[in-house]
């Protein structure tokens, strides 16, 4: 019963902070509430017995990506006064279409007869040894290719952000 309570609290936290990301006036508050949202999703991973992914999620998202985003917000000097806004009609259309998408997805979930899975009582599939075993046997080639992707992304970032000389 307590796990369900934790689930509700984490869900409310993640949904509210996701709404703050969209609706807050200043970009810096959007970044900060996105960090809160990522931490609550990491909490969900822990609840789902995916401890390795929870740690990786915190390191990659809260540690790397959001710091990069925060630096960019400060580098570009974005604040409330420079924030562009859409017209009210476009905003209403955006909210209506997002809500319609959510309705469609929820209706399709409701129409689909999903098999009811019971979560296993004691699960060790999220441990580092099991995920790592899978990663280095069945998924070895994608793992190596992702390192090539990282090198190319790094070079691309440096080339794109470099100041042109003329």
């Amino acid at each position: 019963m307590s796990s369900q309570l934790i689930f509700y609290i984490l869900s409310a936290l993640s949904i509210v902070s996701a709404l703050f990301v969209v609706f807050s006036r200043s970009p810096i508050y959007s970044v900060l509430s996105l960090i809160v949202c990522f931490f609550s999703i990491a909490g969900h991973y822990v609840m789902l017995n995916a401890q390795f992914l929870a740690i990786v999620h915190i390191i990659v998202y809260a540690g790397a990506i959001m710091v990069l985003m925060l630096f960019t917000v400060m580098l570009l000097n974005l604040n409330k006064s420079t924030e562009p806004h859409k017209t009210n009609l476009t905003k209403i259309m955006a909210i209506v279409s997002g809500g319609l998408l959510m309705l469609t997805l929820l209706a399709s979930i409701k129409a689909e007869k999903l098999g009811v899975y019971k979560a296993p009582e004691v699960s060790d599939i999220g441990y580092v040894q099991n995920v790592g075993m899978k990663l280095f046997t069945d998924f070895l080639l994608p793992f190596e290719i992702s390192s090539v992707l990282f090198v190319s992304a790094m070079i691309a970032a440096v080339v794109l952000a470099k100041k042109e000389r003329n």
Partner: protein
Amino acid sequence: MESPETTQNWYLLLSTVLFSIGVMGVLFRRNALIILMCIELMLNAVNLLLVSFSAYSGNTEGQVFVFFIMVVAAAEVAVGLALMVSIYRNIGSIDINVLNKLKW
């Protein structure tokens, strides 16, 4: 809800809501940086869905997929932010309504 434990339908519901909030943010904002953040939000909704399916069906492969999605998201953010810095340096704004040269 019959069983006292959290069933998977709640995770489906939560992922759907988070994904829709991300889509709404992409349509709602004009700041390109916030659009990038909303794309991250959508990726995370899908990640949560994959992890819940992995946990409830007792299969590790879903978690490996999430690992690879994180890899691609990190590369995407690095390149996207470099593009944004470059655009800001040339144009002086990252308002997406200013970037309309390729619009028909």
